[in-house]
């Protein structure tokens, strides 16, 4: 057995690693549930329907817990119901005449204005791609129960329905179904409403206008921020540098003390140096020179590498001496954030959103698997290092014991 205090740290590290894995697993599973549900048939979510009165046409299956609406809600409900009935009438008219373009003609003004919502843009916004645009734009999602709401700006819907939980679906499944089928396949005869699956009808979805607007504004702001960063004002940058210098001199030290973070960074560099040097040495030693020129090259390289190793050792000694003599500004107990070996660390993050393009499921899976593999190797290396350090610690202690004993 290893001495107790030696392996305790290893055990602690292993526990930490196990916990991290478990947490990742949990999150992955959550994510999986969401994805699986998305790929199944989309059920009517049930938030749209109260406990409906017996309605043979309704396909609602999940009853909601009853909720008592407030007087305000009831008033809203009434408005809504009236508007919906009107909508249904209009739609019926449309279905008969087959004129689809009237569908978005419901004026927003006739609807309940919900407080706190931004004013809507008219549904007809130009520049929509795709033939389905004018029809599916008012659609937030192709679902049975949202049908009566199609004529209105989508933003209103959540706030009103959120409060009232109206049994809209009760009213108009049939014309809704008819309209929906019409939106998707204009020439097809009205069919029995089908469940919505991503596979078949996913390409018909459209994002709501408010969302699109907010998202594109978001994107453009990030891009602006990014371009501002790269062309940073000279004045501001100079002012900042000057300020930092002033801070340094005002605190009485012209030489900034080594911070724990800097020590860690230097140590990381030297570790990287060590591994790179070692790799190179292996290469050179295993190479078999065929002519004098190669031999000379090899010799020079080895001697050069020797000099570099010497330099690194010297820097390390200097670092350790500096640390010992003037302890770096106290670092938080517990290790400083352990930057992974493969990551350079400290690079400038770019703010504008970037894309990662893949072309097939296979590629994505390979990518993800490799990422996990690299992370796992990183972790294993860390554990080996912990073990090694502990072993060396044991050696030192036993050597000290022998000396004193």
């Amino acid at each position: 057995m290893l001495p107790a205090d030696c392996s305790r740290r290893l055990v602690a590290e292993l526990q930490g690693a196990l916990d991290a894995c478990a947490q990742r697993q949990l999150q992955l599973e959550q994510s999986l549930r969401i994805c699986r549900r998305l790929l199944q048939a989309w059920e009517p979510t049930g938030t749209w329907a109260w406990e409906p009165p017996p309605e043979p046409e309704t396909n609602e299956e999940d009853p909601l817990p009853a909720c008592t609406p407030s007087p305000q809600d009831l008033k809203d409900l009434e408005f809504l119901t009236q508007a919906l009935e009107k909508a249904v009438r209009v739609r019926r008219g449309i279905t008969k005449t087959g004129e689809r373009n009237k569908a978005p003609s419901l004026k927003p003004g006739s609807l309940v204005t919900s407080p706190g919502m931004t004013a809507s843009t008219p549904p007809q916004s130009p520049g929509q791609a795709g033939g389905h645009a004018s029809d599916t734009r008012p659609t937030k999602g192709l679902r049975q129960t949202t049908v009566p709401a199609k004529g209105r700006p989508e933003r209103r819907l959540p706030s009103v329905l959120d409060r009232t939980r109206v049994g809209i679906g009760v009213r108009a499944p049939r014309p809704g179904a008819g309209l929906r089928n019409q939106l998707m396949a204009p020439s097809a005869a009205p069919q029995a409403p089908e469940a919505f699956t991503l596979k078949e009808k996913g390409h018909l979805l459209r994002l709501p206008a408010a969302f699109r607007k907010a998202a594109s504004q978001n994107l453009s702001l990030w891009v602006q921020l990014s371009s501002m960063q790269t062309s940073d004002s000279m004045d501001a940058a100079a002012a900042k540098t000057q300020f930092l210098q002033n801070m340094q001199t005002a605190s009485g030290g012209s030489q900034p003390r080594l911070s724990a973070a800097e020590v860690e960074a230097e140590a990381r560099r030297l570790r990287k140096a060590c591994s790179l040097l070692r790799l190179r040495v292996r290469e050179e030693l295993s190479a078999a020179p065929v002519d004098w020129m190669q031999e000379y090259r090899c010799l020079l390289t080895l001697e050069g590498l020797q000099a570099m190793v010497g330099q690194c050792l010297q820097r390390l000694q200097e670092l350790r001496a500096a640390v010992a003599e003037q302890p770096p500004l106290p670092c938080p107990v517990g290790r400083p954030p352990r930057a992974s070996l493969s990551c350079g660390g400290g690079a400038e993050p770019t703010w504008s959103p970037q894309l990662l393009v893949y072309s097939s499921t296979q590629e994505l899976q390979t990518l993800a698997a490799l990422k996990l593999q690299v992370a796992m190797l990183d972790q294993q290396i860390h554990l080996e290092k912990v073990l090694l350090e502990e072993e060396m610690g044991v050696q030192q202690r036993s050597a000290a014991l022998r000396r004193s004993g």
Partner: protein
Amino acid sequence: MRGRRVDPAAGARAGALPEAIAALSRSLPSGPSPEIFRRAKFDRPDATSALWQLLFRVLSPLPAGSALASIALEVQARLVKSALCSQGYPRLALAQLPEDGSQGSRELLLALSWLLARGPVPEQMVAQTRVPLGDEMTVCQCEALASLGPPAPHMETEGPVDVRHVQWLMGKLRFRWRQLVSSQQEQCALLSKIHLYTRGCHSDQSLGHLSVTEAEMLRDPEGGQQVSGAGAAQNLDLAYPKGLHFSCTPGMGPRTFWNDLWLVCQQPGLLPGDWAAPLDPGGASACSLLFPLRVLLRTLEHENRRLEAVLAWRRAELVFWQWMDTVLGTCAPEAPAAASQPTFLPWVPECGDGELELVVRELRTLEEELREAAERRRVAWEAKARGCGRGPEWSAARRACRETVEKELGALQRCWEQDRSPAQAHGPHRLVRREDGAAGDRDLRAAELIRTLRSQEACLEAMLRQLQGQCRQELARLAGALPGLIWIPPPGR
């Protein structure tokens, strides 16, 4: 010599400074009012606690939640001091400030400005709480394995630890990794399908298809059907809150943060009651459920306002720096670093030294090896060279050799001298599926990333093998030195 062109017009505008400060405070999460800043310049005590809290928010690695807000001011103050020191904050006055928020607002203002001068703090803060609309994957491995929450309560095991226990833990870890891999593969397949089925939907042509977040929002705009437990924004890495992607620049790492918090709270009398309960960053407070449309919209709008504030701040910040210089001027210069350390969280002198020791040993071994090999070859070479003729082309050839070698070794040295790997992009990227795999200049291609990862993998494997060899050597040495020590090495991989 000041070295900057002061724009007289900018400084003369009366409202410029308050505007700049207002923009700054709007861009920071729960930023204090400009009045607080003004009071801090005059070192008023009532501005102190707001600044402690702001510094804490800026320095802590986790996004805000009710969890963090419930931490007492003293604890926040201690952690702030600790974090600033570990980043090399030069002024000692900070360390000596009382932690009850009774004084020191000017010093805190200086500390905040120091942080602002060193890095893009407002941008980082917004990025921390960024709304990920797409399915994201990070490219780099920063903080990849950082634990997410408080460390499990340390069970101080008494007595020797059985090596079989260690082996069992290692086996368990391997199993969990395998589980992760297979779950991950399944998720990739599903994600790919969702992307495929929704192509042609997105208003943004460059994206082309919906992400899971967007699709889920369409499926269930009310958020009525929730997955049990807290829902997480779609992130393929799922290893850490998105804020950490940007913590490559100095900040407290999460593990450090939690360790510190644990230690600080163990001091008697610091926190009343049980602190463990409200601190649950893995739960709902950290990752908010984003799918309901109204929540998503609200969060997006909020972020947009913050971004506008950051842009305004960047345009106006020169005035702020001029003002900060005057604030600094009102402080008395400090004496050079005193010999005594201010009392802090206990500092472990061997912090990081164990690893340095490792590197020293490796380098020494390498040095020995090289010395032997180089000497041998030098001798052999000299013998050979004596036999050959000496002519101008001979020496020219030798010089050419020397130059080549110098160049190569110089390039090698640059590999580790340069702290940054510019080729490596950082931060999360939105996954986009395109049949042809075409990508713009700024975008990454999966194929290239795969190549990079493969080479990284090879590198790491070599390193691991070497370390395992070293471990075995050390163990052998140990076994020899300490009779009676038996070690069954874990099965090699």
